[in-house]
Protein backbone atom coordinates (compact mmCIF):
# COMPACT_ATOMS: atom_id res chain seq x y z
CA UNK A 1 0.00 0.00 0.00
CA UNK A 2 2.76 2.40 1.02
CA UNK A 3 4.75 1.28 -1.98
CA UNK A 4 1.84 2.09 -4.27
CA UNK A 5 1.61 5.58 -2.82
CA UNK A 6 5.34 6.14 -3.28
CA UNK A 7 5.23 4.95 -6.87
CA UNK A 8 2.21 7.12 -7.58
CA UNK A 9 4.05 10.14 -6.20
CA UNK A 10 7.03 9.17 -8.37
CA UNK A 11 4.85 9.07 -11.48
CA UNK A 12 3.37 12.45 -10.61
CA UNK A 13 6.83 14.00 -10.26
CA UNK A 14 7.97 12.38 -13.51
CA UNK A 15 4.89 13.75 -15.27
CA UNK A 16 5.40 17.27 -13.95
CA UNK A 17 9.09 17.27 -14.88
CA UNK A 18 8.89 15.68 -18.31
CA UNK A 19 5.53 16.86 -19.56
CA UNK A 20 6.59 20.24 -21.02
CA UNK A 21 9.39 18.54 -22.96
CA UNK A 22 6.94 15.92 -24.22
CA UNK A 23 4.41 18.62 -25.11
CA UNK A 24 7.03 20.58 -27.05
CA UNK A 25 7.98 17.59 -29.17
CA UNK A 26 4.42 16.38 -29.55
CA UNK A 27 3.17 19.82 -30.64
CA UNK A 28 5.98 20.12 -33.15
CA UNK A 29 4.75 16.93 -34.84
CA UNK A 30 1.08 17.90 -35.08
CA UNK A 31 -0.50 19.45 -38.15
CA UNK A 32 -1.70 23.01 -37.50
CA UNK A 33 -5.40 22.12 -37.33
CA UNK A 34 -4.61 19.65 -34.55
CA UNK A 35 -2.54 22.22 -32.66
CA UNK A 36 -5.28 24.82 -32.72
CA UNK A 37 -8.22 22.48 -32.24
CA UNK A 38 -10.53 23.15 -29.30
CA UNK A 39 -9.67 19.82 -27.68
CA UNK A 40 -5.93 19.17 -27.42
CA UNK A 41 -4.75 15.78 -28.69
CA UNK A 42 -2.56 14.04 -26.13
CA UNK A 43 -0.72 12.26 -28.95
CA UNK A 44 -0.38 13.53 -32.53
CA UNK A 45 -3.00 11.57 -34.49
CA UNK A 46 -1.56 12.59 -37.86
CA UNK A 47 2.13 13.14 -37.13
CA UNK A 48 3.87 15.33 -39.67
CA UNK A 49 7.30 16.85 -40.19
CA UNK A 50 5.78 19.84 -41.99
CA UNK A 51 6.83 22.32 -39.29
CA UNK A 52 10.40 21.04 -39.36
CA UNK A 53 10.41 21.34 -43.14
CA UNK A 54 9.08 24.88 -42.83
CA UNK A 55 11.77 25.81 -40.30
CA UNK A 56 14.63 24.19 -42.15
CA UNK A 57 13.80 25.27 -45.69
CA UNK A 58 12.08 28.62 -45.16
CA UNK A 59 13.45 31.83 -43.74
CA UNK A 60 12.98 32.40 -40.03
CA UNK A 61 13.39 36.12 -40.56
CA UNK A 62 13.27 37.57 -44.11
CA UNK A 63 16.53 36.70 -45.82
CA UNK A 64 17.96 34.57 -43.01
CA UNK A 65 17.32 30.87 -42.50
CA UNK A 66 17.27 28.68 -39.41
CA UNK A 67 20.50 27.15 -40.65
CA UNK A 68 22.24 30.54 -40.70
CA UNK A 69 21.30 31.16 -37.07
CA UNK A 70 22.31 27.62 -36.19
CA UNK A 71 25.73 28.21 -37.73
CA UNK A 72 26.13 31.51 -35.85
CA UNK A 73 25.27 29.82 -32.56
CA UNK A 74 27.54 26.86 -33.27
CA UNK A 75 30.44 29.14 -34.24
CA UNK A 76 30.09 31.14 -31.06
CA UNK A 77 29.66 28.09 -28.83
CA UNK A 78 32.53 26.08 -30.33
CA UNK A 79 34.96 29.02 -30.21
CA UNK A 80 34.00 29.58 -26.58
CA UNK A 81 34.56 25.90 -25.79
CA UNK A 82 38.00 25.75 -27.39
CA UNK A 83 39.29 28.97 -25.82
CA UNK A 84 37.86 28.37 -22.39
CA UNK A 85 38.99 24.71 -22.34
CA UNK A 86 42.56 25.72 -23.15
CA UNK A 87 42.79 28.50 -20.60
CA UNK A 88 40.91 26.55 -17.93
CA UNK A 89 43.20 23.54 -18.27
CA UNK A 90 46.28 25.68 -17.63
CA UNK A 91 44.70 27.37 -14.61
CA UNK A 92 43.28 24.12 -13.24
CA UNK A 93 46.73 22.52 -13.46
CA UNK A 94 48.17 25.43 -11.53
CA UNK A 95 45.70 25.17 -8.64
CA UNK A 96 45.55 21.37 -8.55
CA UNK A 97 49.26 20.68 -8.87
CA UNK A 98 51.05 23.53 -7.12
CA UNK A 99 50.90 25.07 -3.68
CA UNK A 100 51.64 28.75 -4.11
CA UNK A 101 50.91 31.84 -2.17
CA UNK A 102 47.91 33.21 -4.07
CA UNK A 103 46.26 29.83 -4.53
CA UNK A 104 43.50 30.20 -1.92
CA UNK A 105 42.84 33.79 -2.95
CA UNK A 106 42.44 32.65 -6.53
CA UNK A 107 39.99 29.91 -5.53
CA UNK A 108 37.93 32.34 -3.47
CA UNK A 109 37.94 34.76 -6.38
CA UNK A 110 36.63 31.98 -8.66
CA UNK A 111 33.70 31.44 -6.31
CA UNK A 112 32.95 35.12 -5.99
CA UNK A 113 33.05 35.98 -9.68
CA UNK A 114 30.61 33.18 -10.40
CA UNK A 115 28.10 35.00 -8.25
CA UNK A 116 28.34 38.31 -10.07
CA UNK A 117 24.92 38.87 -11.62
CA UNK A 118 25.90 38.80 -15.28
CA UNK A 119 22.95 41.05 -16.07
CA UNK A 120 24.79 43.74 -14.12
CA UNK A 121 27.68 43.53 -16.56
CA UNK A 122 25.62 44.16 -19.69
CA UNK A 123 26.15 47.92 -19.64
CA UNK A 124 29.95 48.01 -19.10
CA UNK A 125 30.52 45.11 -21.49
CA UNK A 126 28.38 46.91 -24.05
CA UNK A 127 30.68 49.90 -23.61
CA UNK A 128 33.75 47.71 -24.01
CA UNK A 129 32.35 46.07 -27.13
CA UNK A 130 31.47 49.50 -28.57
CA UNK A 131 34.97 50.83 -27.98
CA UNK A 132 36.64 47.73 -29.39
CA UNK A 133 34.51 48.08 -32.51
CA UNK A 134 33.05 44.60 -31.97
CA UNK A 135 29.40 45.67 -31.85
CA UNK A 136 27.32 43.48 -34.18
CA UNK A 137 30.03 40.85 -34.50
CA UNK A 138 30.12 37.27 -33.27
CA UNK A 139 33.52 37.74 -31.54
CA UNK A 140 31.78 40.12 -29.12
CA UNK A 141 29.77 37.13 -27.90
CA UNK A 142 32.70 34.69 -27.95
CA UNK A 143 34.66 37.06 -25.74
CA UNK A 144 31.75 37.59 -23.36
CA UNK A 145 30.92 33.90 -23.01
CA UNK A 146 34.58 33.08 -22.52
CA UNK A 147 34.55 35.28 -19.44
CA UNK A 148 31.31 33.74 -18.18
CA UNK A 149 32.23 30.11 -18.64
CA UNK A 150 35.84 30.26 -17.50
CA UNK A 151 35.45 30.42 -13.70
CA UNK A 152 33.25 27.34 -13.52
CA UNK A 153 35.37 25.53 -16.12
CA UNK A 154 38.49 26.06 -13.98
CA UNK A 155 36.60 24.95 -10.87
CA UNK A 156 35.34 21.81 -12.57
CA UNK A 157 38.65 20.85 -14.22
CA UNK A 158 40.54 21.36 -10.97
CA UNK A 159 38.95 18.19 -9.62
CA UNK A 160 39.86 16.16 -12.69
CA UNK A 161 43.49 17.27 -12.66
CA UNK A 162 43.77 16.58 -8.93
CA UNK A 163 42.43 13.06 -9.54
CA UNK A 164 45.39 12.16 -11.79
CA UNK A 165 48.00 10.53 -9.51
CA UNK A 166 51.01 12.77 -9.11
CA UNK A 167 53.27 9.70 -9.08
CA UNK A 168 52.64 9.13 -12.78
CA UNK A 169 54.05 12.52 -13.62
CA UNK A 170 56.95 12.10 -11.23
CA UNK A 171 57.79 8.75 -12.79
CA UNK A 172 57.77 10.34 -16.23
CA UNK A 173 60.02 13.14 -14.96
CA UNK A 174 62.48 10.58 -13.57
CA UNK A 175 62.49 8.86 -16.93
CA UNK A 176 63.70 12.15 -18.35
CA UNK A 177 60.50 13.53 -19.84
CA UNK A 178 60.35 17.32 -20.03
CA UNK A 179 57.51 19.24 -18.37
CA UNK A 180 55.83 19.79 -21.69
CA UNK A 181 56.13 16.11 -22.57
CA UNK A 182 54.74 15.03 -19.21
CA UNK A 183 51.85 17.40 -19.69
CA UNK A 184 51.09 16.22 -23.21
CA UNK A 185 51.68 12.48 -22.78
CA UNK A 186 50.54 11.86 -19.20
CA UNK A 187 48.25 14.57 -17.89
CA UNK A 188 46.37 15.48 -21.06
CA UNK A 189 45.13 11.97 -21.96
CA UNK A 190 44.10 11.32 -18.36
CA UNK A 191 42.12 14.54 -17.95
CA UNK A 192 40.59 14.25 -21.42
CA UNK A 193 37.22 12.99 -20.08
CA UNK A 194 37.16 15.93 -17.67
CA UNK A 195 37.99 18.28 -20.50
CA UNK A 196 35.06 16.88 -22.48
CA UNK A 197 32.70 17.35 -19.52
CA UNK A 198 33.91 20.91 -19.00
CA UNK A 199 33.61 21.66 -22.70
CA UNK A 200 30.04 20.49 -22.76
CA UNK A 201 29.27 22.77 -19.87
CA UNK A 202 30.84 25.76 -21.65
CA UNK A 203 29.01 24.82 -24.82
CA UNK A 204 25.64 24.80 -23.04
CA UNK A 205 26.37 28.18 -21.44
CA UNK A 206 27.20 29.77 -24.77
CA UNK A 207 24.44 27.99 -26.68
CA UNK A 208 21.68 29.08 -24.27
CA UNK A 209 22.66 32.69 -23.66
CA UNK A 210 20.07 35.27 -24.63
CA UNK A 211 20.55 38.69 -23.01
CA UNK A 212 24.02 39.52 -24.28
CA UNK A 213 23.28 38.14 -27.72
CA UNK A 214 20.20 40.36 -27.76
CA UNK A 215 22.18 43.43 -26.74
CA UNK A 216 25.39 43.08 -28.73
CA UNK A 217 23.91 41.97 -32.05
CA UNK A 218 21.60 44.23 -33.96
CA UNK A 219 22.23 42.85 -37.43
CA UNK A 220 19.75 40.06 -38.13
CA UNK A 221 22.26 38.08 -40.17
CA UNK A 222 24.43 37.72 -37.06
CA UNK A 223 21.66 36.71 -34.66
CA UNK A 224 22.25 33.59 -32.64
CA UNK A 225 19.46 31.03 -32.39
CA UNK A 226 18.04 32.20 -29.03
CA UNK A 227 17.71 35.77 -30.30
CA UNK A 228 16.18 34.64 -33.58
CA UNK A 229 13.68 32.54 -31.67
CA UNK A 230 12.52 35.35 -29.38
CA UNK A 231 11.80 37.44 -32.47
CA UNK A 232 10.30 34.55 -34.29
CA UNK A 233 7.61 33.96 -31.71
CA UNK A 234 7.17 37.52 -30.48
CA UNK A 235 4.44 38.18 -32.99
CA UNK A 236 0.86 38.54 -31.81
CA UNK A 237 -0.63 35.34 -33.15
CA UNK A 238 2.16 32.91 -32.58
CA UNK A 239 2.30 29.99 -34.97
CA UNK A 240 3.11 27.39 -32.34
CA UNK A 241 3.90 24.51 -34.70
CA UNK A 242 7.08 25.97 -36.20
CA UNK A 243 7.98 27.55 -32.84
CA UNK A 244 7.85 24.16 -31.14
CA UNK A 245 9.82 22.57 -34.00
CA UNK A 246 12.51 25.23 -33.64
CA UNK A 247 12.47 24.84 -29.85
CA UNK A 248 12.89 21.09 -30.19
CA UNK A 249 15.83 21.47 -32.58
CA UNK A 250 17.37 23.96 -30.17
CA UNK A 251 16.76 21.87 -27.06
CA UNK A 252 17.66 18.31 -28.08
CA UNK A 253 21.43 18.81 -28.45
CA UNK A 254 21.49 20.50 -25.04
CA UNK A 255 19.58 17.65 -23.38
CA UNK A 256 21.84 15.03 -24.94
CA UNK A 257 24.99 16.88 -23.92
CA UNK A 258 23.62 17.56 -20.48
CA UNK A 259 22.79 13.94 -19.78
CA UNK A 260 26.39 13.03 -20.65
CA UNK A 261 27.83 15.27 -17.95
CA UNK A 262 25.08 15.69 -15.35
CA UNK A 263 26.84 13.52 -12.77
CA UNK A 264 29.81 15.88 -12.89
CA UNK A 265 27.54 18.89 -12.84
CA UNK A 266 26.12 18.00 -9.44
CA UNK A 267 29.46 17.77 -7.67
CA UNK A 268 30.75 20.81 -9.52
CA UNK A 269 27.67 22.87 -8.80
CA UNK A 270 27.45 22.13 -5.12
CA UNK A 271 30.91 23.58 -4.80
CA UNK A 272 30.82 26.44 -7.30
CA UNK A 273 27.81 27.42 -9.11
CA UNK A 274 26.57 28.49 -12.46
CA UNK A 275 23.16 27.86 -13.86
CA UNK A 276 22.06 28.58 -17.42
Amino acid at each position, binding site marked *: MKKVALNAAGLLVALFAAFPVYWMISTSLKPSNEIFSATPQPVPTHPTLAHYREILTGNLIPGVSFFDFFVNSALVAISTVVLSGLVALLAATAVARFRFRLRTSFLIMLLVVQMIPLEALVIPLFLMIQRLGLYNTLPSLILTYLGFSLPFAVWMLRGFVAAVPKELEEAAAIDGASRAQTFRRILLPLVAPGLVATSIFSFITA*WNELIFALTFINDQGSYTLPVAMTFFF*GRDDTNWGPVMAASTLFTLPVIIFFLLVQRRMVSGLVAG*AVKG
Partner: protein
Amino acid sequence: MTTLTEVPEAAAARETPARRRRRVDRLPYLLLLPALVIIGVLLLWPLGQVVAMSFYRLNSVRQLRGDREWPWVGLGNYADILSDPFFLTVLRNTVLFAAANVLLTMILGTLVGLLLNRLGRKMATFVASCVMLAWATPALTGTIVWKWIFDDTSGLVTWLFNALPDGLSNGLFGRSDWTGYGWFNSPLLFFAILTLVVVWHSFPFIAVSVLAGLKSVPSELHEAARVDGASPWRVFWKITFPLLRPVFGILIVLSTIWDFKVFTQQFVLAGGTQDRPTFMLAIYSYAEAFSPPPKYGLGAAIAVILTLILLVVTGFYVRMVLRQEDES
Protein backbone atom coordinates in the same frame (compact mmCIF):
# COMPACT_ATOMS: atom_id res chain seq x y z
CA MET B 1 67.00 29.83 -2.33
CA THR B 2 67.85 30.12 1.36
CA THR B 3 69.52 26.73 1.13
CA LEU B 4 71.97 28.21 -1.37
CA THR B 5 73.14 30.94 1.01
CA GLU B 6 73.18 28.65 4.02
CA VAL B 7 75.42 26.03 2.50
CA PRO B 8 77.50 27.72 -0.21
CA GLU B 9 79.91 24.80 -0.54
CA ALA B 10 77.01 22.55 -1.56
CA ALA B 11 75.83 25.01 -4.16
CA ALA B 12 77.25 23.11 -7.10
CA ALA B 13 75.68 19.84 -6.01
CA ARG B 14 72.30 21.44 -5.43
CA GLU B 15 72.18 23.57 -8.50
CA THR B 16 69.74 21.46 -10.43
CA PRO B 17 67.07 21.01 -7.72
CA ALA B 18 67.36 24.65 -6.76
CA ARG B 19 66.86 25.75 -10.30
CA ARG B 20 63.90 23.49 -10.63
CA ARG B 21 62.40 24.85 -7.45
CA ARG B 22 62.75 28.38 -8.69
CA ARG B 23 61.06 27.43 -11.95
CA VAL B 24 58.28 25.68 -10.05
CA ASP B 25 57.71 28.87 -8.13
CA ARG B 26 57.00 30.90 -11.21
CA LEU B 27 55.23 28.24 -13.27
CA PRO B 28 51.84 28.26 -11.48
CA TYR B 29 51.57 32.02 -11.97
CA LEU B 30 52.41 31.61 -15.63
CA LEU B 31 49.71 28.95 -15.97
CA LEU B 32 47.21 31.20 -14.20
CA LEU B 33 48.04 34.27 -16.24
CA PRO B 34 45.63 33.77 -19.16
CA ALA B 35 42.74 32.96 -16.81
CA LEU B 36 43.56 35.95 -14.62
CA VAL B 37 43.70 38.29 -17.60
CA ILE B 38 40.37 37.03 -18.94
CA ILE B 39 38.58 37.14 -15.59
CA GLY B 40 40.11 40.53 -14.87
CA VAL B 41 39.18 42.09 -18.21
CA LEU B 42 35.80 40.43 -18.78
CA LEU B 43 34.40 40.19 -15.25
CA LEU B 44 36.26 42.30 -12.72
CA TRP B 45 36.91 45.35 -14.87
CA PRO B 46 33.26 45.57 -15.98
CA LEU B 47 32.22 45.15 -12.36
CA GLY B 48 34.35 48.15 -11.39
CA GLN B 49 33.10 49.97 -14.46
CA VAL B 50 29.45 49.46 -13.59
CA VAL B 51 30.11 51.02 -10.20
CA ALA B 52 31.88 53.97 -11.84
CA MET B 53 29.14 54.42 -14.43
CA SER B 54 26.50 54.55 -11.72
CA PHE B 55 27.98 57.94 -10.67
CA TYR B 56 27.51 59.55 -14.09
CA ARG B 57 24.53 60.72 -16.08
CA LEU B 58 24.83 58.56 -19.18
CA ASN B 59 21.99 58.85 -21.62
CA SER B 60 23.36 58.16 -25.07
CA VAL B 61 25.38 55.63 -27.01
CA ARG B 62 27.64 58.49 -28.11
CA GLN B 63 28.69 58.97 -24.51
CA LEU B 64 29.56 55.28 -24.32
CA ARG B 65 31.65 55.56 -27.45
CA GLY B 66 33.51 58.44 -25.83
CA ASP B 67 32.33 61.08 -28.31
CA ARG B 68 30.62 63.04 -25.56
CA GLU B 69 31.34 64.10 -21.99
CA TRP B 70 30.23 62.05 -19.00
CA PRO B 71 28.59 64.47 -16.54
CA TRP B 72 29.40 63.43 -12.97
CA VAL B 73 26.31 63.25 -10.75
CA GLY B 74 27.78 61.55 -7.72
CA LEU B 75 25.06 59.71 -5.86
CA GLY B 76 22.40 61.41 -7.99
CA ASN B 77 21.32 58.20 -9.73
CA TYR B 78 20.97 56.43 -6.40
CA ALA B 79 19.01 59.36 -4.96
CA ASP B 80 16.70 59.26 -8.01
CA ILE B 81 16.11 55.54 -7.64
CA LEU B 82 15.67 55.39 -3.90
CA SER B 83 13.19 58.25 -3.92
CA ASP B 84 11.18 56.61 -6.71
CA PRO B 85 8.26 54.62 -5.27
CA PHE B 86 8.46 52.36 -8.33
CA PHE B 87 11.91 51.18 -7.25
CA LEU B 88 10.48 50.09 -3.92
CA THR B 89 7.80 48.11 -5.77
CA VAL B 90 10.51 46.44 -7.88
CA LEU B 91 12.62 45.69 -4.80
CA ARG B 92 9.59 44.22 -3.03
CA ASN B 93 8.75 42.12 -6.12
CA THR B 94 12.32 40.83 -6.27
CA VAL B 95 12.59 39.93 -2.60
CA LEU B 96 9.15 38.32 -2.37
CA PHE B 97 9.69 36.41 -5.60
CA ALA B 98 13.10 35.14 -4.51
CA ALA B 99 11.79 34.14 -1.07
CA ALA B 100 8.78 32.30 -2.46
CA ASN B 101 10.83 30.55 -5.13
CA VAL B 102 13.63 29.50 -2.79
CA LEU B 103 11.08 28.12 -0.35
CA LEU B 104 9.09 26.23 -2.98
CA THR B 105 12.18 24.95 -4.81
CA MET B 106 13.73 23.73 -1.58
CA ILE B 107 10.55 22.01 -0.38
CA LEU B 108 9.75 20.35 -3.69
CA GLY B 109 13.39 19.47 -4.39
CA THR B 110 13.90 17.95 -0.94
CA LEU B 111 10.67 15.95 -1.14
CA VAL B 112 11.64 14.60 -4.56
CA GLY B 113 15.14 13.80 -3.29
CA LEU B 114 13.67 11.88 -0.34
CA LEU B 115 11.23 10.15 -2.69
CA LEU B 116 13.97 9.10 -5.13
CA ASN B 117 15.84 7.60 -2.19
CA ARG B 118 12.83 5.47 -1.20
CA LEU B 119 11.72 4.28 -4.65
CA GLY B 120 12.71 0.94 -6.14
CA ARG B 121 15.71 1.01 -8.45
CA LYS B 122 13.88 0.93 -11.76
CA MET B 123 11.28 3.48 -10.72
CA ALA B 124 13.96 5.74 -9.24
CA THR B 125 15.93 5.67 -12.49
CA PHE B 126 12.80 6.48 -14.48
CA VAL B 127 11.74 9.38 -12.28
CA ALA B 128 15.31 10.73 -12.06
CA SER B 129 15.59 10.69 -15.87
CA CYS B 130 12.38 12.66 -16.21
CA VAL B 131 13.56 15.13 -13.57
CA MET B 132 16.83 15.53 -15.50
CA LEU B 133 14.86 16.54 -18.59
CA ALA B 134 13.41 19.54 -16.74
CA TRP B 135 16.87 20.51 -15.55
CA ALA B 136 18.52 20.11 -18.95
CA THR B 137 15.93 22.10 -20.87
CA PRO B 138 17.33 25.56 -21.65
CA ALA B 139 15.61 28.42 -19.81
CA LEU B 140 14.64 29.89 -23.16
CA THR B 141 12.81 26.93 -24.67
CA GLY B 142 11.47 25.74 -21.32
CA THR B 143 9.76 29.10 -20.92
CA ILE B 144 8.48 29.12 -24.50
CA VAL B 145 6.78 25.77 -23.92
CA TRP B 146 5.14 26.96 -20.69
CA LYS B 147 3.97 30.02 -22.57
CA TRP B 148 2.35 27.73 -25.10
CA ILE B 149 0.74 25.67 -22.32
CA PHE B 150 -0.81 28.92 -21.02
CA ASP B 151 -1.80 30.17 -24.48
CA ASP B 152 -5.14 31.99 -24.29
CA THR B 153 -6.83 30.16 -27.18
CA SER B 154 -5.37 26.68 -27.68
CA GLY B 155 -3.24 26.33 -24.58
CA LEU B 156 -3.64 23.28 -22.42
CA VAL B 157 -4.48 25.25 -19.28
CA THR B 158 -7.16 27.26 -21.07
CA TRP B 159 -8.66 24.00 -22.31
CA LEU B 160 -8.51 22.49 -18.79
CA PHE B 161 -10.38 25.43 -17.29
CA ASN B 162 -12.91 25.34 -20.15
CA ALA B 163 -13.42 21.65 -19.43
CA LEU B 164 -14.50 22.38 -15.85
CA PRO B 165 -18.24 22.10 -15.35
CA ASP B 166 -19.65 25.59 -15.99
CA GLY B 167 -21.38 25.72 -12.59
CA LEU B 168 -18.17 24.93 -10.72
CA SER B 169 -16.08 27.30 -12.81
CA ASN B 170 -18.62 30.07 -12.37
CA GLY B 171 -18.88 29.48 -8.66
CA LEU B 172 -15.13 29.46 -8.11
CA PHE B 173 -13.87 32.09 -10.55
CA GLY B 174 -16.94 33.87 -11.83
CA ARG B 175 -16.45 32.80 -15.43
CA SER B 176 -16.95 29.65 -17.45
CA ASP B 177 -15.46 30.61 -20.82
CA TRP B 178 -11.69 30.91 -20.54
CA THR B 179 -10.90 31.30 -24.22
CA GLY B 180 -9.10 34.60 -24.64
CA TYR B 181 -8.33 34.88 -20.94
CA GLY B 182 -4.99 36.68 -20.51
CA TRP B 183 -3.08 34.45 -18.11
CA PHE B 184 -0.18 36.89 -18.08
CA ASN B 185 -2.18 40.09 -17.70
CA SER B 186 -2.45 40.41 -13.95
CA PRO B 187 0.91 40.81 -12.17
CA LEU B 188 -0.05 38.27 -9.52
CA LEU B 189 -0.91 35.57 -12.08
CA PHE B 190 2.19 36.46 -14.06
CA PHE B 191 4.36 35.94 -10.98
CA ALA B 192 2.55 32.67 -10.21
CA ILE B 193 3.30 31.32 -13.69
CA LEU B 194 6.87 32.62 -13.56
CA THR B 195 7.26 30.82 -10.23
CA LEU B 196 5.95 27.64 -11.79
CA VAL B 197 8.49 27.92 -14.62
CA VAL B 198 11.42 28.77 -12.36
CA VAL B 199 10.59 26.05 -9.82
CA TRP B 200 10.19 23.55 -12.66
CA HIS B 201 13.66 24.48 -13.91
CA SER B 202 15.40 24.50 -10.56
CA PHE B 203 13.92 21.79 -8.32
CA PRO B 204 15.83 19.01 -10.13
CA PHE B 205 19.18 20.35 -8.99
CA ILE B 206 17.99 20.41 -5.37
CA ALA B 207 16.47 16.93 -5.68
CA VAL B 208 19.63 15.42 -7.15
CA SER B 209 21.87 17.15 -4.58
CA VAL B 210 19.68 16.03 -1.69
CA LEU B 211 19.69 12.50 -3.10
CA ALA B 212 23.48 12.56 -3.33
CA GLY B 213 23.59 13.76 0.29
CA LEU B 214 21.20 11.02 1.42
CA LYS B 215 23.27 8.34 -0.29
CA SER B 216 26.26 9.40 1.78
CA VAL B 217 24.30 9.03 5.04
CA PRO B 218 24.33 5.55 6.61
CA SER B 219 20.79 4.20 6.22
CA GLU B 220 21.00 2.29 9.54
CA LEU B 221 20.29 5.54 11.38
CA HIS B 222 16.99 5.97 9.61
CA GLU B 223 16.02 2.36 9.99
CA ALA B 224 16.77 2.38 13.69
CA ALA B 225 14.65 5.46 14.17
CA ARG B 226 11.80 3.97 12.17
CA VAL B 227 11.97 0.73 14.12
CA ASP B 228 11.69 2.82 17.27
CA GLY B 229 8.41 4.11 15.89
CA ALA B 230 9.44 7.65 14.94
CA SER B 231 7.17 9.37 12.41
CA PRO B 232 8.69 10.27 9.02
CA TRP B 233 8.40 13.93 10.02
CA ARG B 234 10.45 13.34 13.18
CA VAL B 235 12.98 11.16 11.34
CA PHE B 236 13.51 13.97 8.85
CA TRP B 237 13.97 16.75 11.40
CA LYS B 238 15.92 14.75 14.00
CA ILE B 239 18.18 12.70 11.72
CA THR B 240 18.15 13.59 8.03
CA PHE B 241 18.13 17.36 8.34
CA PRO B 242 21.00 17.68 10.83
CA LEU B 243 23.13 15.32 8.73
CA LEU B 244 22.40 17.22 5.53
CA ARG B 245 22.63 20.66 7.11
CA PRO B 246 25.80 21.69 5.21
CA VAL B 247 24.28 20.60 1.88
CA PHE B 248 21.06 22.46 2.65
CA GLY B 249 23.03 25.57 3.57
CA ILE B 250 24.77 25.67 0.21
CA LEU B 251 21.61 24.82 -1.71
CA ILE B 252 19.61 27.60 -0.06
CA VAL B 253 22.30 30.16 -0.75
CA LEU B 254 22.68 29.04 -4.38
CA SER B 255 18.92 29.11 -4.94
CA THR B 256 18.72 32.57 -3.42
CA ILE B 257 21.42 33.84 -5.73
CA TRP B 258 19.80 32.29 -8.80
CA ASP B 259 16.29 33.45 -7.98
CA PHE B 260 17.43 37.01 -7.39
CA LYS B 261 18.75 37.23 -10.93
CA VAL B 262 16.08 35.42 -12.92
CA PHE B 263 16.06 37.12 -16.29
CA THR B 264 15.55 34.91 -19.34
CA GLN B 265 12.35 33.27 -18.08
CA GLN B 266 10.86 36.63 -17.20
CA PHE B 267 11.97 38.27 -20.44
CA VAL B 268 10.44 35.50 -22.54
CA LEU B 269 7.27 35.15 -20.50
CA ALA B 270 6.63 38.90 -20.57
CA GLY B 271 7.62 39.14 -24.23
CA GLY B 272 10.28 41.79 -23.62
CA THR B 273 10.75 44.67 -21.20
CA GLN B 274 7.42 46.48 -21.49
CA ASP B 275 5.54 44.88 -18.60
CA ARG B 276 6.60 47.28 -15.85
CA PRO B 277 4.29 46.04 -13.05
CA THR B 278 6.11 42.70 -13.11
CA PHE B 279 9.63 44.15 -13.07
CA MET B 280 12.30 42.76 -10.79
CA LEU B 281 15.79 44.23 -10.26
CA ALA B 282 17.62 42.44 -13.09
CA ILE B 283 15.10 43.26 -15.80
CA TYR B 284 14.52 46.77 -14.38
CA SER B 285 18.22 47.55 -14.67
CA TYR B 286 18.26 46.22 -18.22
CA ALA B 287 15.13 48.10 -19.26
CA GLU B 288 16.37 51.43 -17.86
CA ALA B 289 19.66 51.03 -19.70
CA PHE B 290 18.54 49.68 -23.04
CA SER B 291 14.97 50.70 -23.79
CA PRO B 292 14.90 54.08 -25.47
CA PRO B 293 15.72 56.60 -24.20
CA PRO B 294 18.73 54.79 -22.73
CA LYS B 295 19.65 55.60 -19.14
CA TYR B 296 22.90 53.70 -18.68
CA GLY B 297 23.85 55.50 -15.47
CA LEU B 298 20.53 54.75 -13.80
CA GLY B 299 20.61 51.14 -15.03
CA ALA B 300 24.15 50.80 -13.66
CA ALA B 301 23.04 52.07 -10.24
CA ILE B 302 20.27 49.45 -10.13
CA ALA B 303 22.75 46.78 -11.18
CA VAL B 304 25.10 47.85 -8.38
CA ILE B 305 22.29 47.53 -5.83
CA LEU B 306 21.49 44.02 -7.11
CA THR B 307 25.18 43.10 -6.99
CA LEU B 308 25.53 44.36 -3.43
CA ILE B 309 22.59 42.22 -2.30
CA LEU B 310 24.09 39.18 -3.99
CA LEU B 311 27.56 39.84 -2.59
CA VAL B 312 26.19 39.58 0.93
CA VAL B 313 24.58 36.23 0.07
CA THR B 314 27.80 35.14 -1.67
CA GLY B 315 29.77 35.83 1.49
CA PHE B 316 27.78 33.10 3.27
CA TYR B 317 28.30 30.79 0.31
CA VAL B 318 32.07 31.18 0.17
CA ARG B 319 32.32 30.58 3.91
CA MET B 320 30.31 27.37 3.63
CA VAL B 321 32.27 26.05 0.64
CA LEU B 322 35.61 26.76 2.30
CA ARG B 323 34.46 24.98 5.45
CA GLN B 324 33.49 21.96 3.34
CA GLU B 325 36.85 22.04 1.56
CA ASP B 326 38.61 22.02 4.91
CA GLU B 327 36.62 19.03 6.07
CA SER B 328 37.17 16.95 2.95
